């Protein structure tokens, strides 16, 4: 199947080229964001399984234990609900905990803490309580193919939570910094293909990407693709492909899923009159449904063709590579959808 090799993905994201010219991988940028905030703010600490001496799954917390020690980089038992509860409670005391659930596949074991506590506390106390915590977790397909679930749609459905999914190294750092500084519970989804596969320009020093960001990654006049996470890169791959066919695609990176702001997508669709929504999660009830429904409503008179959704089929996610590759939407699927709406 057509798919862009992670290595080939290489760009700067939301930031202008910095003189420094520093190029980091997605995960390096992510860790730098946590490190900078831990240096700046003593109330920030990290909890998770193997985040300490081991440096985290896929090097997700590399170097933090060495710099900050066991008090601020806490290894936890295999107790996802208690881990998230620990973050909610610590946040209530004014700390700024980052709790790592190793993989998004384990979020179902901590839903009560996330949905019934973290999301409700501020509103239900008429503002007396605040829950400034970050829940980071690895999602999507990846080099090892393990734990590939994408449950972001569940959380985008729950008011009181913020949900972000950066697609570039610069935003991995900038949004992590913003998430840590935000006074609300932020779910931070880290796509595993991006981890070591995406490298880009990352500003040194204080660098904040607003959590409500949506980015136009590539300008084009014919069709808009609104994508999340790794699919942003597949969309860009598809755009390259389609350019050779004379179809100019505009690629929008919906880096913030909740609270959702669709202005950028609307503006783009007013120009292109055509929209493809692309994500790696299951199609039915996926987050793409919300984007499609909202745009179909707000841009009803602008659309020249039905909004198309590119997503995983409605079946459990198989493990073996040939099945996984056939299962997940790829560059070709995105390109095909674009051709369809372009023709339509």
């Amino acid at each position, binding site marked *: 199947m057509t798919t862009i090799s992670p290595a080939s993905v290489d760009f700067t994201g939301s930031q202008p080229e910095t003189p420094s010219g520093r190029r980091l991988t997605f995960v390096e940028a992510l860790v730098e964001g946590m490190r900078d905030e831990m240096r700046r703010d003593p109330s920030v*600490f990290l909890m998770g399984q193997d985040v300490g001496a081991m440096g985290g799954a896929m090097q997700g917390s590399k170097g933090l234990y060495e710099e900050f020690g066991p*008090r601020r980089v*806490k290894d*936890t*038992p295999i*107790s*996802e*609900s*208690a*881990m*998230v*509860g*620990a*973050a*909610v*409670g*610590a*946040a*209530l*005391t*004014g*700390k700024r*905990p980052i709790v790592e659930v190793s993989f998004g596949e384990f979020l179902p074991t901590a839903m*009560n*803490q996330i949905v*019934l*506590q973290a999301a*409700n*506390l*501020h*509103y*239900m*106390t*008429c*503002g*007396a*309580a*605040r*829950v*400034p915590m970050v829940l980071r977790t690895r999602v999507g397909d990846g080099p090892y193919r393990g734990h590939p679930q994408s449950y972001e749609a569940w959380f985008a459905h729950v*008011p*009181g939570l*913020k949900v972000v999914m950066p697609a570039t190294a610069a935003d991995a750092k900038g949004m992590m910094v913003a998430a840590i500084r935000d*006074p*609300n519970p932020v779910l931070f989804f880290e796509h595993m293909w991006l981890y070591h596969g995406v490298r880009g320009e990352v500003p040194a020093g204080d660098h904040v990407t607003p959590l409500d960001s949506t980015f136009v990654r590539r300008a084009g006049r014919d069709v808009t693709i609104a994508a999340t996470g790794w699919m942003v890169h597949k969309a860009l791959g598809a755009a390259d492909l389609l350019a050779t066919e004379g179809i100019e695609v505009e690629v929008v990176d919906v880096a913030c899923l909740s*609270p959702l702001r669709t202005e950028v997508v609307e503006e783009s669709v007013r120009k292109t009159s055509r929209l493809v929504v692309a994500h790696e999660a299951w199609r039915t009830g996926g987050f793409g449904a919300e984007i499609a429904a909202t745009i179909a409503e707000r841009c009803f008179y602008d659309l020249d063709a039905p909004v198309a959704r590119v997503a995983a089929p409605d079946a459990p996610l198989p493990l073996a590579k040939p099945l996984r590759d056939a299962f997940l939407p790829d560059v070709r699927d995105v390109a095909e959808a674009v051709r369809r709406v372009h023709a339509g």
Partner: protein
Amino acid sequence: MATAAPTRINHPAPHAHGRDLLRLMILSRVLEQTCCELNPRWFPAEGEEAAIVGAFYGLRSDDFIAAHYRGPFIAYYLRGADLARLIGQALAKANGYARGRALGFTGPFELGCLPWVAGDLGTSLGVATGVATGYQYEGGDRVVVCSFGDGTSNRGDFHEALNLAAVWKLPIVYVCQNNQYSISLHLSQVLATDTIAARAAGYGMPGVAVDGNDVLAVRAAVEHAVESARAGLGPSLVEAQSYRLSGHWASDPGGYRRDEDVAAWRERDPITRLERQLLEAGEVTRHDLDQLWQDARDEVARAVEVAQAAPSCDAADIGLGEAYAS
């Protein structure tokens, strides 16, 4: 969070504890029964006053509590909560601490109480453990006291929270308010051990089961546990063994249990028991007791008046824009 210099709350000189504990139990009885009369869906705590008062007595203003949903008002009162505002919650009036947004038995966060923002039992143990995580991170000697029901101890969150607290030596005391029932189910239908305290050994923390109708025993066990938590020695589990004298909610006839059992437990009423003790010890007179009951009734009656006069919740205060902090 309360950040003022820590002060002891409702905490008289030691020799007066007995009388003060009695006053609080009587107040709790009158207060909760009044709520049951005002709201047929209220959850009666009759008979469990010793377990509740003993658990939350004598803490500091900078400590934190997470009270079980049954009979928590006296615990909030010990934090300095206003009775009229609490009763307002039972009436879903706008003067309640959550202005009608959270559950009626929620507590004032601003006074160091974990609010009830959802109805799923057990989850609060995780959050309370998190508050203790925050306290430990601060350094200092603030502690958390977290109570929960016997039935709730079968939720996975109980297990994960207690293990985490034990491994990290967190400053938290878990108090099981064991009234032997989960709605219609007797403890023997959902638990195959004699005590819930027996579970503490599986986490490597001290666990003790005490007579939950003896407020002095509950108080002593919790005080000891609080002191060791404050000293950085880690968490403890205290099980206060009592009995739910009334139904699950006020209008529940509770037909699923035998009258003689209920009658037998009425004999062990924690309030009459302490009254007898104090009378025998000559610490109070019959007249003092009548006065305590009268004072409680008056105090509650005044609060009811205020609460009933308070405005109902106003749709204008729904605060749809307040889901996020800024």
